[in-house]
Structures are given as C-alpha cells and as structure tokens.
C-alpha cells in the first residue's frame, strides 16, 4: 500500500513549521467556523491533525491510483471529437478518485463547500500529485482558478461557481492566443456587450489552453474596442453549460501528455464579466499568475522527488563490475546531488507558500474589517517576500527538476533511453515546467528588482540571525562567505548603471542569491531535523562552487565584450 505522504517524512517536517500557528490562526479567524460546520477544526492542533489526515488520503490516492495510471495515461493521452475532449481512461479514474475524496476546492472557504485549507497543505497535495503524475497535476491544480473567482468575482458569482468547483467540476484559464504568448497585452479575443440581455459575447481563438474543455473557464478578452494594450483587457467567466466554445484541436506535446492542451474557438460564447472592466490583465492575471507559478514550483518539486527516487532505486539495484553502481563515486555523487536539489527545492516551495499564506489571509481579512497597524505591517512584509520568492523559486526549482530528470536517465544508462523506465517520462514532463507560466528568463526579469533593491539580501540577513546548532557552524560560515561574494558582484554590476549589462548578468545574480537562500533554508531544516544534514552539506558545497563560478564570470567580464553576443 503505497502512500506518498507517509513514505516521505520531509512532508510532515515542512507541514509543522512554526509559522503555521500564525497562518492557521489567520486562515481560521480564531476557529470561528467550528460552531457552524461539523468538519471545521476546534483549535490549532485539531486543524493540523486534519491537514495530516487529508494529506494521507492524497498520499494514498497518489500511490495507489494516480502513479500506477501514469504510464498508460502518457501513452493513451486525451482525444478530441466533435469539439469535445475525452480524457485518457486513467485520467478519468484519477479525477473520479479526487472528486470522491473531496479534494477539489481545498483552499476555498467552507461557506462555498471548500475545506478552507491554507496554501501550505494545499500546495503539499500538489507536490504529492506531481510526484505521482505531473500531467495530472495540471488538471487537478486548475482548481487554483477558483481562487481568482473568489478574490475578484462578486458574491453572486462566488455562490454560483465555487461550490461547483468544490463538487469536482474542472476549470481552465484561457489566456494565450496564437499571437499572444508571453506578451499577453496582444490578446485579441473580442468581448462584445449585449445591452439587451446584459451578457458579454466572446469571439475569437485561444491557443495552448490547458484543459480547454473545462466546465468553467476564466477568459482574458478585449472588451474595449479600439485598444491595443493590456488596459483594454477584461476577465470573463464562461460556463460550458451555455455553449459557444469548441475545441478545434489538441496539441501533440512532448510531455505531460495526459493533460489536454487545446485550441479553442469562441463563437458568440455567452460570458459574464469577472471583476471590473480593464483590470483583466493588469490586476487579475498578474494575481493569478503568482498563484499559478507556485503551483508549477510544486510540480517541479514533485518531479524532482520522483526523478531522485527512480535514480536512487536503479543505482542500488543495478550491478556492474560486481557491485551496485551507487557504490561508484561518479554515481553516488549524482544521487546525493539529486537528493539535495529536491530537498532544497522543497524547502523553497514551502517557505514561499508560507509567505503567500500570511499575506493572502490578511488580504482576505481586510475585506471583513480594518487591519491593525501591526497587521498591515505584517501583510506588507509577507506580500513583498512572496513577490520576491515566487519567481526565484519557480525559476530555480523548475531548472532543478530538469537536471534531476536528466541525471535520472544518466544513472539508468542505456536502459534510461528506452521507454521501459519511468525516467524518460519524467524527463519529458519536466521540460515544460521551466517554460510555462513564464520561462526561467522571465522569472529572472521579475526577480532581478529584488536583487537590486535588496529584498533577497535582507531576508538572507534574517536567516543569518537565527541560532544554529554549533555543529552547523562550518556550513553557516560557508553561507556567510557566499553572501559576501553575492553582495560584491551585485555592487559590481549595478554600479555600472548600464541597464542592458544588468539584464545580461541578471540570471547569474538571481542564481547567486538563490544559492544563498536555498542553502540557508536547508541549514534551518538541518537545525530542526538531523535527516536534512546530508542535503545541507551537499547543497552548500554545490552552491558555494556555483557562486564562485558566477563571481569569476562577472568579475572577469569585460563589458565591451557584450557586442560579441549580439546578433
């Protein structure tokens, strides 16, 4: 009986972080729901116990249903006929299981039939699902869209749509078009208001839409005729029950093949406005995007974990030259580094999730009452940290997922190149994570201002100030030295006041900051729990060398050489 939650003790470790007390207290408004809902927690301990019990259900479904289905789903994939999508058989089984288990709308308030879970346990479920099948995480994770409905829809819309999501209806987020990918300002799908019935009607084409045949869609469309930029775009809710949207084709992708990526044709599709006109892109998509990026981080962490497990299992079973290949330094180094990258990625994922939790809960409370000055301060602090950690985390963890999947195949040797082992699927599945919801290059664009304004450095200083056990002193010294080098190169680059040059070196600076932060997060894990010590040692050795490489590159770089790189 495989249970992906119980077989990985680091889950419990991350769930029980000290900041959870504050998060749960905010999310539960002092445990006020207990008189109204028989499944609401009585107090903090009770809430944590419930999170664990629900994660055990998730872990069991992942181990018993989703993971065993992953290979067949990858081979079969979804199909499209007469404008409608049919999921692979295994995908349908997975969906039935998560619906029966009541795992849709996990983070939604109880008054809409949700579980009112904070982001941390929700994202932990996403981490588990991704380890089982990253492609299925896309379908399951789209319940995130309910968050957007909750934040920006009116009360009537919340009451009509959110309970449907909690009951298991699926969602999609229809943003991109043939000529509007990363540049969403170019969205052309036309929304026309009909005075007679008070509805909007959508016409045009959307492309690369994950789960495009969903029950409920959030659609970005141009509501302001004659406009050309993001300020002419609004967000709409399209309900499949009304009809008007057909799936023209589904893409034949390299990976996450179970998740249907659709091209949609809107023909006078009746829709309703979500939130205010003109704020579609500039406010709602930006908010939604940060949540989606956290989801992709979870997907990357799940994949990193799966790749490590595949690599480790093969390395211990496969014998060559009379011994298991994991006994050879070249192999055990790879396996140890995979473990370290997976652990570091997971530490980053939950740190970011906690930041998001605090500020979002306070945001939500601010709709009910005025925040105290202390709460406003707290809200500001965590909102900024979430803003800084999300792009860094998404960028780094998705690259690590790719590296781990690559190494998993390498460990398998020739066998890994065959379709017989799961590692080849992981490799294909991982490849999209550093592309969608913003490429790593775009994550750097979002992260770099936190290098230049010092958000990262300030947080590193906070980590430095924590009391660590004496035996971790050497690691801390290494991290302090890394931080010093980071400060030095940042000053070196920024002092040029040359924006193009800053952009050129941006990724290296973000990565150097990330190595310090990931290292400190693992140091804190090791401080609490000896089982993280190995990964802390391995990661910091690695990060230290990476920072040295960056220092060498930047300090030896002649700005005049930029010309050689330009086409």
């Amino acid at each position, binding site marked *: 009986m495989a249970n992906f939650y119980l077989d990985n003790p680091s889950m419990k470790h991350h769930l029980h972080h000290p900041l959870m007390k504050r998060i749960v207290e905010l999310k539960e408004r002092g445990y006020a729901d207990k008189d109204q809902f028989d499944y609401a927690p009585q107090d903090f301990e009770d809430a944590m116990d*419930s999170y664990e*019990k629900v994660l055990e259900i998730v872990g069991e479904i992942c181990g018993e249903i989703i993971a065993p289905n992953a290979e067949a789903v990858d081979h079969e994939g979804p199909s499209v006929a007469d404008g409608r999508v049919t999921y692979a058989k295994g995908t349908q089984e997975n969906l039935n299981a998560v619906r*029966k288990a009541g795992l849709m709308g996990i983070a939604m308030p109880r008054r809409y039939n949700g*579980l009112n879970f904070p982001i941390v346990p929700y994202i932990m479920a996403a981490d588990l699902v991704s380890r089982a099948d990253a492609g299925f995480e896309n379908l399951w994770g789209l319940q995130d869209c309910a968050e957007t409905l909750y934040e920006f829809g009116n009360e009537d819309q919340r009451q009509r749509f959110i309970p449907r999501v909690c009951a298991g209806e699926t969602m999609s987020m229809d943003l991109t078009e043939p000529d509007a990918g990363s540049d969403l300002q170019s969205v052309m799908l036309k929304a026309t208001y009909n005075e007679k019935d008070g509805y909007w009607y959508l016409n045009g084409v959307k492309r690369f839409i994950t789960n495009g045949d969903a029950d409920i869609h959030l659609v970005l469309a141009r509501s302001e005729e004659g406009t050309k930029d993001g300020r002419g775009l609004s967000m709409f809710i399209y309900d499949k029950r009304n009809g008007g949207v057909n799936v023209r084709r589904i893409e034949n992708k390299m990976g996450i093949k179970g998740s249907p990526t659709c091209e949609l044709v809107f023909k006078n599709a009746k829709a309703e406005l979500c939130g205010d006109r003109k704020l579609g892109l500039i406010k709602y998509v930006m908010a939604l995007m940060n949540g989606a990026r956290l989801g992709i981080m979870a997907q990357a962490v799940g994949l990193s974990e799966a790749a490590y497990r595949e690599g480790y299992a093969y390395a211990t079973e496969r014998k060559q030259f009379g011994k298991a290949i994991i006994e050879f330094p070249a192999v055990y180094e790879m396996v140890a580094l995979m473990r370290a990258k997976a652990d570091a990625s997971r530490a980053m994922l939950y740190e970011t999730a906690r930041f998001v939790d605090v500020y979002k809960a306070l945001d939500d409370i601010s709709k009910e009452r005025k925040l105290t000055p202390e709460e406003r301060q707290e809200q500001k602090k965590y909102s900024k940290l979430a803003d800084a950690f999300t792009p860094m985390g998404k960028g780094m963890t998705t690259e690590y997922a790719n590296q781990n999947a690559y190494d998993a195949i390498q460990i398998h040797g020739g066998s890994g190149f065959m379709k017989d082992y799961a590692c080849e699927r992981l490799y294909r599945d991982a490849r999209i994570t550093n592309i969608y919801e913003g490429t790593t290059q775009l994550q750097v664009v979002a992260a770099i201002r936190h290098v230049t304004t010092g958000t990262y450095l300030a947080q590193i200083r906070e980590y430095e100030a924590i009391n660590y056990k004496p035996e971790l002193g050497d690691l801390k010294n290494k991290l302090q030295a890394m931080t010093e080098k980071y400060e030095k190169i940042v000053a070196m680059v920024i002092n040029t006041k040359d924006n193009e040059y800053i952009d050129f070196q941006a990724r290296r600076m973000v990565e150097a900051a990330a190595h310090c932060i990931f290292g400190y997060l693992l140091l804190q894990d090791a401080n609490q729990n000896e089982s993280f010590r190995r990964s802390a040692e391995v990661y910091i050795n690695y990060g230290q060398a990476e920072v040295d490489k960056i220092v060498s590159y930047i300090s030896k770089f002649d700005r005049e050489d930029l010309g050689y790189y330009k086409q």
Partner: protein
Amino acid sequence: MSLKIIVLAKQVPDTRNVGKDAMKADGTVNRAALPAIFNPEDLNALEQALRLKDAHPGTTVTLLTMGPGRAAEVIREGLYRGADGGYLLTDRAFAGADTLATSYALATAIKKIKDYDIIIGGRQAIDGDTAQVGPQVAEKLGVTQITYAEEILNVDQKARRITVKRHIDGGVETAEGPLPIVITVNGSAAPCRPRNAKLVQKYKRALGAQEKAAINLATEYIPYADLYEKYPYLNITEWSVADVEGDVAQCGLSGSPTKVKTIENIVFQAKESKTLSSSDRDIEDMIVELLANHTIG
C-alpha cells in the same frame, strides 16, 4: 426513493503480506504481528452500497461488524467513505466464533436493527477464506441470497426487485431477486472509493466505548470530550450479547462446532515447465492433455 442497507464488514489481519512470525507455534494466526485492516472484499461490498446511496437519495448505509473494541476502526473507515453509521458487536461471549456462531450473532443483530432492504458483504474474509458467513446469515434470516456479485445493476423499489451481475465459472450471469436480500461481493468488483476529506474531518474522533475507556486509562482524559455530547454520531454503538438478546450458548466458542485438527503450511510450486508455440496444434494438444489429467473440465 430510499433504501436501507446493512454492510457486513470484518476487521482482519492483513494476511496478504505475511512475514515469518505470521503464525504462532500452535498454528493459529499471530494477530499481533499483522496489521488489522478492513477485509478487502468487504470494501468492494461497501462500494456497491455507497453507489446505491448515490443513485437513491435518502438511502442509509449502516455497517455491522463483530470484534474486539478496536474493530470500531472498521466503522470509522466506513463513515470516512460515506456510510451513515454502524454497530460493533463486541462481547467476550462472541469471541472464538466459527462461521456458524458468527452468522448467528450477525443475524441476531440484524433482527434487532429490523428494518432493511439489502444486506451486503464481501464474498469471504482473507483470514478464513470460508465464504460461508454471508450465505448463513441469509439462511438464518430466511431471505434470498445472491453470491459472488460483480455489480448491482438495478434496484426497482416499486417491484421490490434487484438485478445483480454475478461471477460464475468462466464468465458472468445476470440474476434477479426480491428484496430484502443478502448479497456477497467478489473482489473483482469495483474497488472502494477513497476516504473523503470532509468526512474524515467530521468523523475522525468517532470512538466506541471500549476505545474511550482505553484512552482514559492511558492518559486519564478524553481529548475534546464535550464534542461527544454535541455530536452524538461520534459515539460508535457497541452491542453485547444481551443487547441483541442473543443466546450465549450459540455465540462464540460455545456456539462453534468447528474444530481445527491440524494446520499445514502448503506451498504451491511448479514441478516442471513446458514450452509451447502459439500454433493451434500445440494449444489443442495442451487442452487435450489438461482435460485428460483432469486439470481442467
């Protein structure tokens, strides 16, 4: 239109993954060494009951189990998946029961519950593999039985008829019977749905009286004790022999004519192997050979 369904379920030692210490020297099962689980085919039965509940609003699903105090876990597992309640038959006098005494106890409890349309359980339990308890309960209650069910296809409440797809040698057949009825379900039927997140949070503290007493003895207090008054469904009903007005002589060891003479450990092994081509000729020869030595037919 609603139905009243009783699910017979048993807590069993997990004999599917046995280690060296699974048997005691005297040949009996070493229950301490094996984790206690919900008998797998009873989970298939529970799923059939819950599907009827999905299809017939207002239907109630009640679990009935017999065992020590900790067997209340079976009832909790049922509640987590959508059952409405349960009864734990628990009494020293029930202990050591063979299939006859077990079916007597269950039938007596069912008579006390009185109002039912369908009684459904797994084909057999993995600790005894007898497949006798379901049929015996049906006989004792004097109702029709359909065994080896794969799927309940339809319940016509007006006509009081049920249609069931059942497993037979080499295929399936569709059988129809009157309500009330006893149905036993095969392991090849649909697997049971997972535990539900809301129900787990709602019922996680449900306890039987013996479990409460054990917690009280160990820690001298019951966490969230006031909730048991606020939510009566958190108290799992325990029934003794007296509660179901049973005859002690027909219960437990005294009511069990079965005597175990010896237990032998049998390991199946292939003695020799034979390689066949996929030609019709080879296959036909093999069939003839197997028919001749009575392996099949």
